[in-house]
C-alpha cells in the first residue's frame, strides 16, 4: 500500500540526491578551475556557494516537518535521519570546494610548480570520482559501495601527504614558490576533507540499510 508518507519521503529523497549532484558538480568545477587556473570559474563558485547552504536548510526543514507530522519508525525513520545527518556533510564538502576556488584566485600570478599541480589534478579527479560514487551509492542504497569509499579516502590521504612533502621541499629550495606551495597544501587538505565528509555520507548509507552506526575508517 502506498502511503501519503511515501510521497513526502520521495520528495526528501529526491531533494537530497539533487543536492548531492549539485555538490558533486561544484567539487568538479572547483578542481577544474584550479587545474585550468580559471579565476572566473572560481569566482562563480564562490558567488553560488549560498545555493548549497539554502538546499541544506530546505532539506533540514523538510526532515523536521516529516518527523513532527508523520512520526516515522524503522527504515522510514532511518531514511529521514540519514538525510538529516548526511545533508550537513554535503554542505561542508561544498564549503571545501569554495576554499579551493579561493586558492585558485590566490595562486594566480604567483610562481607555480607544474609537477605538483599535475599530482593535484590527479588527486582532484579521484576526489570528484569519489563524490560521484558516494551519491550513486546513496541513490542505489548500496551498502557495499558505501563501504568501498574508505579505500579512495585512504588513497587521497597518501596523495596529500606526498604533495605536502614536495611543497615543503620546493619552498626550501625556492622561496618564490611559497604562496603557490602553501595553497597546494591547502587544496590537498581541502580535497581530503571533502573525501572525509563523503565517507561520512557512506556511513549514513550503511546506517540506512542496517540500523548500525559505524565508523568506516576504524573498520579496516
Amino acid at each position: 500500500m502506498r502511503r501519503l508518507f511515501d510521497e513526502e519521503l520521495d520528495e526528501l529523497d529526491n531533494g537530497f540526491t539533487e543536492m548531492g549532484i549539485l555538490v558533486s558538480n561544484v567539487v568538479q568545477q572547483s578542481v577544474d578551475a584550479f587545474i585550468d587556473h580559471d579565476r572566473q570559474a572560481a569566482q562563480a563558485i564562490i558567488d553560488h556557494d549560498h545555493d548549497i547552504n539554502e538546499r541544506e536548510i530546505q532539506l533540514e526543514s523538510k526532515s523536521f516537518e516529516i518527523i513532527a507530522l508523520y512520526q516515522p519508525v524503522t527504515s522510514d525513520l532511518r531514511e529521514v535521519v540519514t538525510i538529516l545527518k548526511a545533508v550537513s556533510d554535503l554542505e561542508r564538502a561544498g564549503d571545501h570546494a569554495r576554499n579551493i576556488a579561493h586558492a585558485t584566485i590566490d595562486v594566480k600570478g604567483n610562481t607555480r610548480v607544474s609537477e605538483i599541480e599535475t599530482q593535484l589534478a590527479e588527486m582532484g579527479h579521484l576526489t570528484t570520482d569519489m563524490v560521484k560514487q558516494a551519491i550513486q551509492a546513496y541513490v542505489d542504497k548500496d551498502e557495499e559501495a558505501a563501504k568501498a569509499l574508505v579505500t579512495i579516502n585512504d588513497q587521497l590521504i597518501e596523495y596529500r601527504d606526498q604533495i605536502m612533502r614536495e611543497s615543503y621541499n620546493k619552498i626550501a629550495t625556492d622561496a618564490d614558490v611559497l604562496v603557490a606551495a602553501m595553497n597546494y597544501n591547502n587544496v590537498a587538505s581541502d580535497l581530503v576533507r571533502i573525501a572525509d565528509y563523503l565517507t561520512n555520507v557512506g556511513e549514513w548509507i550503511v546506517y540506512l540499510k542496517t540500523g548500525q552506526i559505524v565508523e568506516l575508517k576504524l573498520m579496516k
Partner: protein
Amino acid sequence: MTKILETHDLHVYYGQHEALKGIDLSFEEGGITALIGPSGSSKSTYLRTLNRMNDLIPNVTVTGTIKFRDQNIYAPQTDLVTLRKEIGMVFQQPNPFPFSIYDNVAFGLKLAGEKNHERLDQVVETSLKQAAVWDEVKDHLHESALSLSGGQQQRVCIARVLAVSPQIILLDEPTSALDPISSSQIETTLLKLRTDYTIITVTHNLQQASRISDRTAFFMNGEVIEMDDTKKIFMNPARKETEDYISGRFG
C-alpha cells in the same frame, strides 16, 4: 530475571475457527509488554486467556499450557477467583460498578471478607494514590464512580485491580476510549506501576506502545511474528511484516 508467566504452544479455537495458532511467549517479572497487531490478529484473545476470561465465552477450546509462576492455570484445581486476583484485568471501556468510588475500590477486599474499616480505608487510599487519581477524588469518595470523567473512571478501575494486590495487570486497550490528556495520565500511571507489577497491555496506539512499553510482541493472523525490546521493534525489527505494520504499510 524470573519468568512470571509463560505460554507454550497455546491454541485457542472459537468453534472450528483457530484464533491462536500455537503461541510461545514468556514474560519476565516487572515492566510493561505491549501486544500490537492488526484487528483480528487475536492479541485480545491471547490477553484474555492469561486469566481465563475466555472461559466465559461458549464454544471456546484452549490447548497448550499457560504457566503462572510455574503453575498451569488451566489445571483443574485452579481457583478462578484467586487467579483473577493475582492476574487482574482492565478493559477498554471504563467499567466502574454503579457504587461509590470507595466501594468500587474496596469491592475485591470486601468480597474476600475484609471487614476492618481502618484496613479498608488504607487500601482504598493507597490504591487510588498508586492509580494517580487520589488527589482528584479524595473529597468525593462516597459519590458515585459514574459521576467521574472517563479518564478518572479508568484510573478508579485500575485502583480497583490494585486493591487486591495482583502480580500481573492485563489491560485491553485501556486508553482507546479516552481523550489524549486522560490517555497520557493513564500512561504516566502505568509507568509508575511498572516497577512493582508486571503489566501486559493490548494497544492499537503504536506511539503509546513505543512510549511506555519495555517489550513489544507483534501479532498477526493468530501468530506472534516477533517479540523483542520495544526499541528494537520500533527502530530495526527483524521481520518485514513487523516493519510493514508499524510503519503503516498495512493494517
